[in-house]
C-alpha cells in the first residue's frame, strides 16, 4: 500500500523559509524513512505565491487565480509518498516527524484495483 503524507506547516507565507536546524532534523527523518525502505518520493513545496489556483465552475469553465492567499496557514507545504503495510504503520511514521505546531495528513493512495472494472477499463494510463 502507498500513503501520501501531506505536511500542513501552519505558517504564514512570509515565514515559509525553514531554519537550518529544522532542515537538518527533517533530513535525518527523511533518511530514516529511506533506510527503512519505505520512502518512494518526497518534495517540499514553494509558498503558494509561487503558484496559483484554477477554479472550475459547475459548467466546467476554468478561472485562474494567483496566490498568495489569506489562508496560507491551511495550505500544503510538502509531501512524502511512502510504502507502508498498514494505515497504522503510516500514521506511526508520520508521528515520528520532527515537526512543531503543524499537522500531517496521511492518506492512502488509490490503486487501480480500488476501482470497479468499468472504471479500470476506461483508464488509458498516465
Amino acid at each position, binding site marked *: *500500500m502507498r500513503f501520501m503524507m501531506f505536511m500542513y506547516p501552519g505558517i504564514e507565507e512570509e515565514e515559509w523559509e525553514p531554519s537550518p536546524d529544522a532542515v537538518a532534523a527533517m533530513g535525518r527523518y527523511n533518511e530514516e524513512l*529511506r*533506510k*527503512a*525502505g*519505505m520512502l*518512494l*518520493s518526497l518534495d517540499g513545496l514553494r509558498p503558494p505565491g509561487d503558484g496559483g489556483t484554477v477554479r472550475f465552475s459547475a459548467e466546467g469553465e476554468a478561472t485562474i487565480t494567483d496566490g498568495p492567499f489569506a489562508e496560507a496557514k491551511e495550505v500544503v507545504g510538502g509531501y512524502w*509518498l511512502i*510504502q507502508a*503495510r*498498514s494505515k*497504522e*504503520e503510516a*500514521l*506511526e*511514521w508520520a508521528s515520528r516527524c520532527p515537526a512543531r505546531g503543524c499537522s500531517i495528513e496521511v492518506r492512502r493512495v488509490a490503486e*487501480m*484495483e480500488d476501482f470497479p*472494472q468499468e472504471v*479500470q*477499463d476506461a*483508464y*488509458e*494510463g*498516465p
Partner: protein
Amino acid sequence: MTEATRAIEAVWRIESARLIAGLARMVGDVGLAEDLAQDALVAAMEKWPQTGVPENPGAWLMATAKNRAIDRMRREQTYERKREEVARDTGALFALERSEFEAAVDDEIGDDLLALIFTCCHPLLSREARVALTLRLLGGLTTAEIARAFLVGESTVAQRLVRAKKALREAKVPFEVPRGAELDERLPSVLEVIYLVFNEGYAASAGEDWVRADLCEEALRLGRVLAELAPREPEAHGLIALLEIQASRLPARRGPGGEPILLLDQDRGRWDPLLIVRGLRALGRAEALPKPLGPYGLQAAIAACHARAIRAEETDWVKIAALYEALTQISPSPIVELNRAVAVSMAFGPEAGLELLEEIKDEPALAKYHLLPSARADLLEKLGRKQEAAAEYHRAAGLAANHREQELLLGRARALT
C-alpha cells in the same frame, strides 16, 4: 483487534528488525534475540494500552528486552549448570552492561541489521528456511502470515523456523557481516532470498490473499534496505533496480479476466512511472560502481531497455541481445540462451535467432519447456516455413501446462494451415 493493539503492531513492524539485530549482536544468537524481543513486545502489549506509546518506542523495547535478557541469564546461571552456556551468557552479560543502546551510532545499527540479513540468509540453511527466517526476523511477519503467503501450513513454517534457528546455533554461525571474499560468496544467497520473495508475490494473482501480493512490496522494501546498507555492491543496486522495474509492470501484466499479458503486448501506459524512474536510478548507481554488473544488474539493464521504450516497437533489441550475451558469459543457463535467441531474432531477424535455438534444441533442461518450441514456431512462421511452424506449435501446446496457453498455441497452428 483494538486500535491500541494495531498501533503497537505498527511499531513492532517498524522496530522489530533493528531490535532483534541489536539483541543478536549482544547475545550472539538470533533465536534467543527473537525470544527477548518477543518478551519486550508482550510487555508493551500489557503496558502501552494504558500509558500510550512512549516517545521513543524503539529505545523502550530495547531497554525492556535487555532487562529480560539479564533476568533470564541470572536464572539460567542458577538453575542450569551447562558449562558452555554459562560461559557464553557471562560474556553476553558483560557485553550488555558495557553497551549502551541509546548511544549506539547509526552505523552500528546498520551493521547489526546487515549482519541479521546475512545470518537469516546463511547458505547452510535451505532456501525455504532462509525465506521464512528473513520474513520473520526482518519483515516482522508472523508465522501465520508467512504460511498464508507461501500457501503452506502454519506448523510447517513454525518447524522451518525452529530448525533454522537451531541449525544456526549448532553451527555456531557468528553474528557478523562477512567481509572480503566471504562477502562476495554469501551475497548471492541474500539476493536470492529477496528475489524469491518478490517472485512469490509476483506470481500471486489479483484478488488473491493480500499477504501474497504484499510480498512484492516487502521484497522491494528489503531490497532497498540492502542497497542502503551495502552501497558498494553493484548487485545490491542491480537487484533493486530489477525489482522496481518489474514491479512497475504489475498493473499491466493481467487482463480483465486475470489472464497473463506478455511483456510486448502490455499497455505500457499502465506501467508505474515512479517505479521505472526508481529502477533506472538504482541501475545507474550499479553502473557507476567500479565492479562490473552481475547477473541481477544485467537483468535490470535488460528490463530497463523495455522500460525506456515508450512503444514495444521502439525496443532496443540490439542492446538487449548484447546484454543477454553478457549474461550467458557470467551466468549461463538454457533459459538465458533461449531469451538471447529471441532477442537476437528481434534485432537481426528470425534466421539468426533460429540458428541460436538450433544450438539448444536438445538441451535436456528445456525438454519439457513449452517456450522453446513456441519460440521456434514463431521464428519458423516468420520465415514462411509454415508446416514446420505448425508442428512446433503443436509440440509447444502439448507441453504447456496452462489451458489458456494451449488454446493460444493451437490457434496459431490452425491459422497456418
